[in-house]
């Protein structure tokens, strides 16, 4: 007994010293305000509730976003948004935070994650909050329906989209002129695109190998948009089928297969891995690049003269239409937030701010040249083409098991197709039942 009594104080002292000696990891700011009261105190005297916002913003983007947040915070009376950027491994971190109950109140989510998280009960359903809200960013009928549907699940709304970025065709006018090829125009078809890509793939140093290419494909742009352009679908409207083996879908897939890594038209895989993907276009090695409307390819040369000068055109037309993919993301609310009303208010105000910063705002009333030029002045010259692309822009149809669907689509269809391990028809036939198994609940 004496032995033990002697030891106890040392154990406690040791632990206390260890506690002092090992400072914890720098704290993430926490919402420290107690749960909201039924009758809020007058705004002037009430302390503002801290609303944490998690984003994947890098240094530059975070700085710009902070300016938006500062304006929102200055006008807010009930909340203060605290930005927590997590540029690396964002989705891994927020998943861990959500599962561990330490996630931020507001979160940025790319389109493919929202249905899955909503299905798992992690996101706050904001449909009822939106009903009585008269603020412009809360008017759902002002959003492009195809973009808004990515933030909805089973008829309920779980977030507000803050960007709708259609894919456009960036091209290098100098490379076109050097090769004697007419620049792209609004009547361009797949055949025109392929013919130009072939002429633009050139060996300029005479070593027998091409050193500049017509275009570059690498899983991006999404194969989906070419399937849509041919009249096919990857997920049916009712989200119960994956008809990737229809003649239309196969035509789109075959067009993609004909170009990707094909040294006749496009940069090979090794070159992409060595020199980067969009870097090939920026560095004047690729003449045509499918990029998001907000990409800086058309003004990168104004920041750094080493980059090639590029212009913007519409994507070439497919056999049935000119559908283009619209990348979109939303801000959502963590279902476990202690301050749902304040978080919702912050969401709507912040979304309005972001719509004046990011292009293209996913709202009909803001999709105009003035707003684009005011948001990103360098995009003024491209605004007209971007706006013309918008009516053809489509987002993915998202299903709750989207990640599984994506894995199967890549592993069983796209990758073997690109690697020449089967024809589009064979692979589509094999992959379809597995894809559809993920659609049935």
């Amino acid at each position, binding site marked *: 007994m004496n032995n033990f009594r002697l030891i106890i104080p040392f154990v406690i002292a040791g632990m*206390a010293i260890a*506690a002092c000696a090992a400072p914890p990891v720098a704290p993430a700011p926490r919402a420290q305000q107690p749960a909201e009261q039924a009758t809020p105190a007058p705004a002037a005297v009430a302390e503002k509730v801290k609303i944490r916002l998690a984003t994947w913003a890098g240094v530059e983007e975070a700085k710009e976003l902070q300016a938006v947040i500062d304006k929102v915070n200055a006008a807010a009376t009930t909340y203060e948004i605290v930005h927590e950027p997590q540029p690396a491994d964002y989705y891994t971190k927020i998943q861990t935070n959500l*599962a561990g109950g330490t996630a931020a109140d507001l979160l940025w989510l790319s389109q493919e994650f929202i249905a899955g998280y909503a299905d*798992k009960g992690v996101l706050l359903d904001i449909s009822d909050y939106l009903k009585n809200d008269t603020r412009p960013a809360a008017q759902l009928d002002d959003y492009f329906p195809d973009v808004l549907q990515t933030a909805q699940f089973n008829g309920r709304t779980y977030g507000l989209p803050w960007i709708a970025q259609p894919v456009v065709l960036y091209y290098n006018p100098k490379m076109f002129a050097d090769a004697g090829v007419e620049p792209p125009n609004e009547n361009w078809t797949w055949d025109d695109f392929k013919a130009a890509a072939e002429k633009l793939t050139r060996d300029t140093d005479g070593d027998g190998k091409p050193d500049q290419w017509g275009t570059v494909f690498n899983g991006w742009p999404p194969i989906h948009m070419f399937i849509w352009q041919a009249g096919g679908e990857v997920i049916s409207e009712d989200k119960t089928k994956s008809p990737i083996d229809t003649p239309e879908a196969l035509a789109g897939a075959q067009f993609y297969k004909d170009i990707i890594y094909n040294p006749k038209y496009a940069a090979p895989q090794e070159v992409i891995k060595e020199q980067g993907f969009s870097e090939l276009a920026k560095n004047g090695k690729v003449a045509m690049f499918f990029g998001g409307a907000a990409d800086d390819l058309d003004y990168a040369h104004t920041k750094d003269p080493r980059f090639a000068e590029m212009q913007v055109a519409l994507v070439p037309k497919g056999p049935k239409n000119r559908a283009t993919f619209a990348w979109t993301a939303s801000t959502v609310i963590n279902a476990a937030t202690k301050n749902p009303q304040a978080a919702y208010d912050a969401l709507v105000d912040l979304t309005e701010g972001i719509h004046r910063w990011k292009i293209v705002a996913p709202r009909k009333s803001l999709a105009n040249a003035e707003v684009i030029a005011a948001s990103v002045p360098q995009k003024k010259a491209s605004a007209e083409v971007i706006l013309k692309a918008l009516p053809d822009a489509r987002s993915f149809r998202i299903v709750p098991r989207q990640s599984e669907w994506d894995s199967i689509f890549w592993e069983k269809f796209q990758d073997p197709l690109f690697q020449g391990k089967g024809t589009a028809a064979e692979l589509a036939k094999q992959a379809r039942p597995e894809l559809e198994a993920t659609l049935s609940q």
Partner: protein
Amino acid sequence: MDFYARTLIDYAVVALGMAIAMFVVFQVLVRLGMKREAATGYALILPWLLGFIIWTAYPILASLYYSFTNYNVFQPPKWVGLDNYIKWLTNDRSFWPSLRLTLLYGLISLPIGLALSLGVAMLLARNVRGVGVWRTLYYLPAVIPAVATILLWRWLLGSEGLVNQILSPVYNLIGMDKPSWFVDERYALPGLIIMSLWGVFGANTVILLAGLKNIPTHLYEAVELDGGGAWAKFRHITLPMVSPTLFYTLVLGMIAAVKTFEPGIFIKLNSLTTGTFLQVLVYGNAFAGGNSRMGYASALGWIMLVIIMVLTLLVFRSSALWVYYEGERK
């Protein structure tokens, strides 16, 4: 400040709670008739025991359970029986290329690494001036963090990296293009193996050095009296006497090879063609990308355990043929 003060209080509460728990355990054990010395011992290992149960034993058992379920970390796990195991073995296109890469990586890098470790250990076992400095220098790479080492090698083995620059005359001589290590599928495995040899001068060398130092000098003297040279000493004394240490490092090295993780995270390998390390597949399914398939990942963890056990069993069985124990009777 607030946060630090709160954390400090948390620590103090845990420390106090632990001390009380230890005291209670001591009292209970004594009342149950245990000797005081033994009861003190059990009370003192209580924090470690609790840590082991909470942070090691429970996750191991939980992962075994999850491996038979569909579990996404947000919703309760759903029992699916052997589905996850069957999917890995029959329906996952990344499994077999990754198993192949992981095993080949271990099979090639381990013997080369051990042979080089033994060579370095023999050099360091010599009684030369300043041997302490040499030993420190050779151990230094082992204390550099794995991530820094991998980034360094990624640069060294880049297509315009130092290795290709130095070997450029050789490539010209044999009419070969500069290889794109880590990019070209054909060179990924050799690149990873070259990188793994960095660890040669680390722990294995130290362990083998200890094994070499334990060899009695009279055995070498006996060889000299019999007219044996350096090769005879190495073949008939050093190798048999150090074989138990080699056996130990081989078993640990093999387990580590199957569990290789960092190179696969920092050097992107196509899991469908080149394959990647199995551990990277576990991480990818359990955590990465925000779509956890914890049950599926757990199943691969247990498949890896079976692989490690089979390999260890084979090495143990083979040990009778090549490991020499001094006190052993045949």
